[in-house]
């Protein structure tokens, strides 16, 4: 068992999400950076993908009652285990009665803590992912107890069977498909949309990422239609919004672009604020 000593800014349990309930209006949820989530599971040699803790800006402080193995992936945070700095993206032995302090982020946005066996928190509709509509308490809190599946580590040496960690975080070039409403835009508007250098606005969250430095283009509202994580909406007032994991299943703004999975993972880790650059690249 693990006890939450300090919850961090916004820490949640996440997995691949709840995919099969969209026609009932249930958001997908799941880890913002699915690549980092899968990597955490691979590094722990899990045969099936298991839930992890996701954190952002400032991570949680956790107390481990029993010995286990953990792994940290995704964004890089200042992390100390019993006062000693620990490494990123490799399994780490945690002795019983240990304290893990995940401090401030220094590269990327969303970090992940995987634990050997995976967290076994309550599942709602076949997923452990926290979503504020489905759970009254949708983030970690002080004093919370987290349980995980007890299992043996197969090989205590670092296993080299690792997906390469992609070059993200600084200049983010996002591969996109034309969205279902792309052709509502004129040729000139399309060029402006695709040639612009954007940044990630600080108001972004797990539901949507707002793009800053938008070109002066806009699109009409549409009759409510399906949307999914990675759908890029252009509003009548010219806002450009990329829907993320916690987004609703339908929407009424023009869907001008659709990110690839890879682009969505990259965007979730794109540094926030002016001075960083994010561009769309039509495939």
């Amino acid at each position, binding site marked *: 068992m693990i006890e939450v000593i300090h919850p961090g800014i916004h820490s949640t349990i996440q997995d691949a999400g709840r995919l*099969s309930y969209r026609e*009932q209006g249930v958001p997908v949820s799941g880890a913002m950076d699915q690549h980092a989530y899968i990597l955490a599971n691979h590094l722990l040699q899990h045969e099936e993908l298991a839930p992890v803790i996701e954190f952002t800006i400032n991570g949680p402080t956790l107390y481990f009652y029993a010995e286990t193995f953990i792994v940290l992936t995704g964004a890089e945070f200042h992390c100390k285990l019993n006062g000693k700095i620990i490494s990123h993206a490799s399994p780490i032995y945690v002795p019983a009665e240990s304290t893990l302090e995940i401090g401030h982020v220094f590269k990327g946005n969303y970090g992940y803590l995987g634990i050997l066996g995976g967290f076994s928190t309550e599942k709602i509709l076949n997923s452990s992912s926290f979503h504020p509509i489905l759970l009254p308490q949708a983030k970690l809190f002080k004093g919370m107890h987290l349980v995980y599946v007890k299992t043996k580590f197969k090989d205590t040496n670092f296993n080299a069977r690792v997906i390469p960690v992609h070059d993200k975080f600084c200049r983010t070039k996002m591969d996109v498909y034309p969205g279902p409403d792309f052709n509502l835009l004129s040729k000139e508007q399309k060029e402006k949309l695709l040639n612009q250098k954007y940044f990630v606005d600080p108001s972004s969250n797990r539901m949507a990422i707002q793009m800053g430095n938008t070109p002066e283009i806009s699109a009409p509202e549409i009759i409510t239609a399906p949307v999914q994580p990675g759908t890029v909406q252009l509003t009548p007032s010219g806002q450009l919004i990329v829907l993320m994991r916690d987004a609703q299943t339908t929407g009424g703004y023009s869907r001008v672009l659709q990110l690839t999975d890879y682009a969505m993972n990259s965007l979730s880790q794109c540094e926030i604020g002016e001075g960083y650059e994010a561009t769309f690249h039509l495939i």
Partner: protein
Amino acid sequence: MKKKPTISQFGDHGILLRYPEKIDHKIHKALTQYTHFLSNSFSEIIDGFTIAYHESAFYLKPDVSVDIAIELFVRKFNEANLLEEFKESSTLYTVPVCYEAPFALDIDEIAQSKNISVSKIIKIHTKPIYPVYFIGFLPGFPYLGGMSKKISHPRKASPRVKVSSGSVGIAGTQTGIYSSESPGGWNIIGRSPLNFFNTEIENPSLFKAGDHIRFESIDYATYKNIEEEVKSGSYSIQKKTYK
């Protein structure tokens, strides 16, 4: 609706079925039938779908090729008399609603602005059989068609921070039911004691696209009785087959 929807790719794993942009009962019916037909035919490669007014989206399992799936869909579509073989019957549900205080927060305002009586609003709202176009906005929230323009009313200028679960609202010419507590800008004209979204059961949403509902006016005492029955699990909603 003999015409078939177009089929196109929607992202890495998505396929979009599309009719011309229109809120139309016939278009929606055909879309729903085609969507359910494909989802039943290819359930082993599909990870869920979303239906809206004139478009539906399928989301494929991660290891399935979109190109191959589109080819399978098109081939299935070309089979003759698809919808003749696949006729879905609809269910008509009766939803009890108490249009009284303390639930009917905005009904007086609508009555005044429309210059009609509250009882007339209730009469107009309980008259139609509403098609459930789709579930969206919140888990279990039904988008309903067919409300009378006589009681249409614009959304509130600033949304309420908290609208209670079960609240029945009007926004423009739309009417709907808040399936869970949420912030919201719809005008609230009453509340239903039913549970519209329950994660404890296999199909958490009470309604699905293609169903029909009608509202039935109940008084406060009946509301309280039904609320108790819902809590204890002894209530079952009135329903019948609808053509």
